[in-house]
C-alpha cells in the first residue's frame, strides 16, 4: 500500500517535472483583433486547440477585439506586460492601417515572434453568377466602370488592399463595399448584396466547398490544394501574386530569451500532425518563419505598403484634401 502510494507520488512528481517549470507557468493570452469566425480567429482557434500540449498544459486564451482594422485590439495589446504572456495576431491589414491613418503604433515597433501561415488571395462569385472566369469579370468591369459591387472585409484592410492592387494591375474599377469583417462579407456575397468578393484562404473556403460559391482565380504561384480545380490568375494571363502573412507579435521590450521560448512553442505546434491536419482541413498554408525571418518579411511588407499607399495617395496621411 505504502509502496503503491509512493509510486503514485513519484509518478505525479515525474509528470510535474516533465510539464513543470519553465515558460509558460500560466495561460497565454492571444489577442485577435478581428471578429470571431473570420480567418484570423479560425487559425488561432486551431492553434489554441493544440497549444496546451506544447506549453506545459497551459491553454492559449483567445480574445477577440474586433473593428477598425485591428486598431482597438492592438491598443489593448499595447497595455500588456512584456513578459510573453500576451501575444497578438498580426497580418498585412494591420500594417496597412498604420499608413492609412494615424495610429498610436507602427507595424515595426513590436517584437516579432514568428510567421505562421502565408495565404493566397482568391476571387469568388456565387455559383449562379454570370461570370465564369476572371477575365469575364475584368472585361465586364472595364466596359461598365464602378457597376460591379465588390465586397471587402473592411476599409483599409488586407482584403481591401489586395482588391486595390488587383484592380490597378488589371485596369478596372468597381464600387468597393466594406463589411465589418470577413464573415459578414461572405454573408453579403451569399445573399447578393455584392456581386463579387475575395478573401485570403481559408476564409470562405467552406462555402466554396459546399457548392454555394465559385472561385474565379487564385492569386498564387501555383494551384492550391484546397481548390485544385481553380485556375491561378497567372494561368489566365495576369501575372499577379497576392498573399497575406499571419504571424505573432509580442510586446516591445519582451526579453529575447522569452521570444525564443515562444518561437519554439509555435515551431513545435507548426510541426504537430494534429495542427497540420487542422490547417489542411481549413485550407490555410503553413509557412513557419523564425522571429528573425519574420522581422525581415514584416519590414519589407511595411515599406512596400507604405510606398503604394503614398504613391496612390490613399488614406488620411497621404491624401491631399
Amino acid at each position, binding site marked *: 500500500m505504502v509502496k503503491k502510494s509512493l509510486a503514485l507520488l513519484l509518478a505525479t512528481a515525474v509528470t510535474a517535472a516533465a510539464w513543470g517549470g519553465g515558460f509558460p507557468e500560466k*495561460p497565454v*493570452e492571444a489577442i485577435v483583433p478581428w471578429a*470571431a*469566425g473570420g480567418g484570423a*480567429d*479560425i487559425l488561432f*482557434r486551431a492553434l*489554441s*486547440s493544440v497549444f*496546451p500540449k506544447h506549453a506545459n498544459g497551459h*491553454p492559449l*486564451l*483567445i*480574445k*477577440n*477585439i474586433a*473593428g*477598425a*482594422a485591428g*486598431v*482597438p*485590439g492592438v*491598443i*489593448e495589446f*499595447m*497595455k500588456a506586460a512584456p513578459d510573453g504572456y500576451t501575444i497578438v495576431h498580426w497580418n498585412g491589414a494591420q500594417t496597412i*492601417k498604420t499608413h*492609412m*491613418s494615424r495610429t*498610436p503604433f507602427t507595424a515595426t515597433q513590436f517584437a516579432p515572434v514568428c510567421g505562421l501561415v502565408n495565404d493566397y488571395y482568391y476571387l469568388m462569385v456565387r455559383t449562379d453568377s454570370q461570370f465564369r472566369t476572371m477575365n469575364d469579370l475584368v472585361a465586364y468591369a472595364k466596359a461598365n466602370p464602378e457597376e460591379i*459591387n465588390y465586397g471587402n472585409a*473592411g*476599409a*483599409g484592410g488586407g482584403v481591401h488592399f489586395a482588391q486595390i492592387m488587383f484592380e490597378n494591375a488589371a485596369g478596372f474599377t468597381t*464600387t468597393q*463595399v*466594406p*463589411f*465589418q469583417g470577413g*464573415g*459578414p462579407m*461572405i*454573408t*453579403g456575397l*451569399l*445573399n*447578393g*448584396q*455584392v456581386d463579387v468578393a475575395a478573401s485570403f484562404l481559408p476564409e470562405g473556403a*467552406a*462555402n466554396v*466547398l*459546399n*457548392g*454555394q460559391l465559385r472561385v474565379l482565380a487564385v492569386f498564387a504561384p501555383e494551384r492550391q490544394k484546397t481548390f485544385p480545380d481553380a485556375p491561378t490568375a497567372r494561368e489566365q494571363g495576369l501575372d499577379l501574386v497576392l498573399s497575406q502573412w499571419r504571424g505573432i507579435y509580442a510586446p516591445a521590450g519582451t526579453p529575447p530569451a522569452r521570444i525564443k521560448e515562444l518561437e519554439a512553442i509555435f515551431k513545435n505546434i507548426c510541426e504537430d500532425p494534429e495542427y497540420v491536419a487542422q490547417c489542411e*482541413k481549413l485550407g490555410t498554408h503553413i509557412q513557419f518563419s523564425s522571429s528573425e525571418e519574420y522581422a525581415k518579411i514584416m519590414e519589407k511588407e511595411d515599406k512596400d505598403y507604405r510606398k503604394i499607399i503614398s504613391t496612390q495617395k490613399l488614406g*488620411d496621411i497621404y491624401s491631399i484634401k
Partner: protein
Amino acid sequence: MFDYFLNGIVASFSPVTFLTMLMGVVGGIVIGCLPGMTGSMGLVLMMPLLYYLQPSDALLTLAGIMCGSMYGGSISAILISTPGTPSAAATMLDGYPLTRQGKAGKALGIAVVSSAAGGIFSSLALLLIAPALAEVAMSFHAHEYFSLSIFGLTIMAGASGKNLVKGLAAGWTGLFLSTVGVDGNMGLSRFTFDIPNLMGGINILPVLIGVFALSQIFENGEAIQKPHEIIDQDLRDVWPTFADMKRIALSLAIGCVVGTFIGIIPGTGGAIACFLSYDLARKLHRNGDKFGTGLIEGIAAPESSNNATTGGALVPMLTLGIPGDVMTAVMLGALMLIGVRPGPLLFTEQPEAVYTLLAGMFVIQFVILAIGMGACRVSPLLLRVPPALLNPAIVVFSVVGSYTLGNNLFDVWLTFFFGIAGYFMRKFDFPGAPMVLGLILGPMAEDHLNRALLVSRNDWSTFVTRPISGFFIGLSVLSIAFSFLAYGKGKSKSASGGGKSAA
C-alpha cells in the same frame, strides 16, 4: 427524421453527455446571473475544458451555456434590478416592480417557464422548418438591417415609462454614445479625444452595469441609516397557475415568434429581441399602459424571446455556414471538428449530427426548467441579506464584470462614470432602458446605412421600395404614431387623475 431525433434524445441522456450539458447549463445560468458576465465570456472561460470533451459533447455544453445564460440574466434583473446580460434588460422593467410587491417568486417562475417555452419553440422551428427559415437570413441585406434597427429605435418610446421627452432624451444620448470610436467604413476617429481606449467605442456592458446596477447601489446608499426593510416574499406558489398561463399566452406567443425571427438574422441577438417583443406585447395588450408596474406579461414576452433567439441563431449557422456571433462561431468550429460541414445540404446529408444537437437543445430546455424552479424558491432569499453586505457584493461583481470584459481598467472607470450618471438620471426621472437601446442599435443602424447607400448608389428610396425594408419602415411609422397617441391619452388621463411618474 424522427428516429434521428429520438436517437439524439437518448444520446443526450448518456452519462458524460448529460453531465457536461448540465455543467454548461448551470455554468451558463450563474454567468448570466452575474452582472457583467455574458454567455460569450462563459464560453471563453470554459474553452480550455471544451477541448478535452468529445466534440459532440462540447457542442451540447456550448448549447447549454448559450441557453442557460439567456435565462440566468433574468434572475438578477428581477431580484436586484440589475440585468445580468443585455438580453435581460427588458425583463427588469416589470420583474423588479414585482419583487417590490413581494412577488419575486412568481416573477422568477414566470421567467423560467417563459425561457423554456421560448427555447422549445425555437428548437421546434429549427427542427421542422430550418431550411425555409434560412431564407429569412438570406433576404436580410443592409437595407433590411437598417430598417429593422430604425424600427427597433422607435420602441424607445415604449421603454420610456411615463415621461416621453425624458425617455427620448436618454435614447438620443445612447445613440450619440454609440458614435464614439473609429468608424467602420472610413476608419476615422470620432469623439475619441485622443484617448486610445475610446477608439474601440463604448461597450454596452459598462453602461448597462453603471446605469442599472451601480446607480441603484448609490441610491440605496441614501437610506443607509434607515432599518433594513425586508419585503415578505411569497414563495409558496412559484409555479404559474393555469390562470397565469392564460394571461401570458399572448405575450409568450409574441416573444417566441419575435425571438426566433430576430435570432435567425445574423449579427442581431437577445438584447434586440427582448425589447422588440416587450414593446409589441405592451402595444397589443388591453392594459398596455400598466406595463412597467409589475405585469407578468412584461416578463413573459422578453424572457421567452431572448431564449427563442438561441434556436434561431443556429439556423444560419447550420444551413448556411454563417455564424452570427461568437457563440455560434465556436459551435461551427466544433461541428467542423466532428467532420460536419454546415451548409444547405447538411440536413439531408448528415442528419445524425444535426438532430443530436437539436435533440440536445430540447433536453436543455427541460433542464433549465428543473433548475430554474429550484432557483425560484432559493434565490429570493438573497433579498434578506442586509444591504450592508449585499450592496458591496454587487459593487464587487460589477467591477469584476466590467474588468473581465476586456481585462481593461478603463472599462471599470467607464462603469463608475455611468454609475454616477445613472444616479442623476434616477434622481431626475430619466429612464435607463432607452439609452441602452440606443447604444445597442446605433452602431447597427449606422454601419448598414452606409453599406446600403453604397450598394444603391446613394438612392434613399430603396429603403421603402424593397419589400421587407419597406415593411419595417411602415412598422416604424405605425409604432411612432401609436406612441404619440398613447402618450396623448396618458397625458390627458394623468392631467385629470394627477398621475405619478414612473422610473
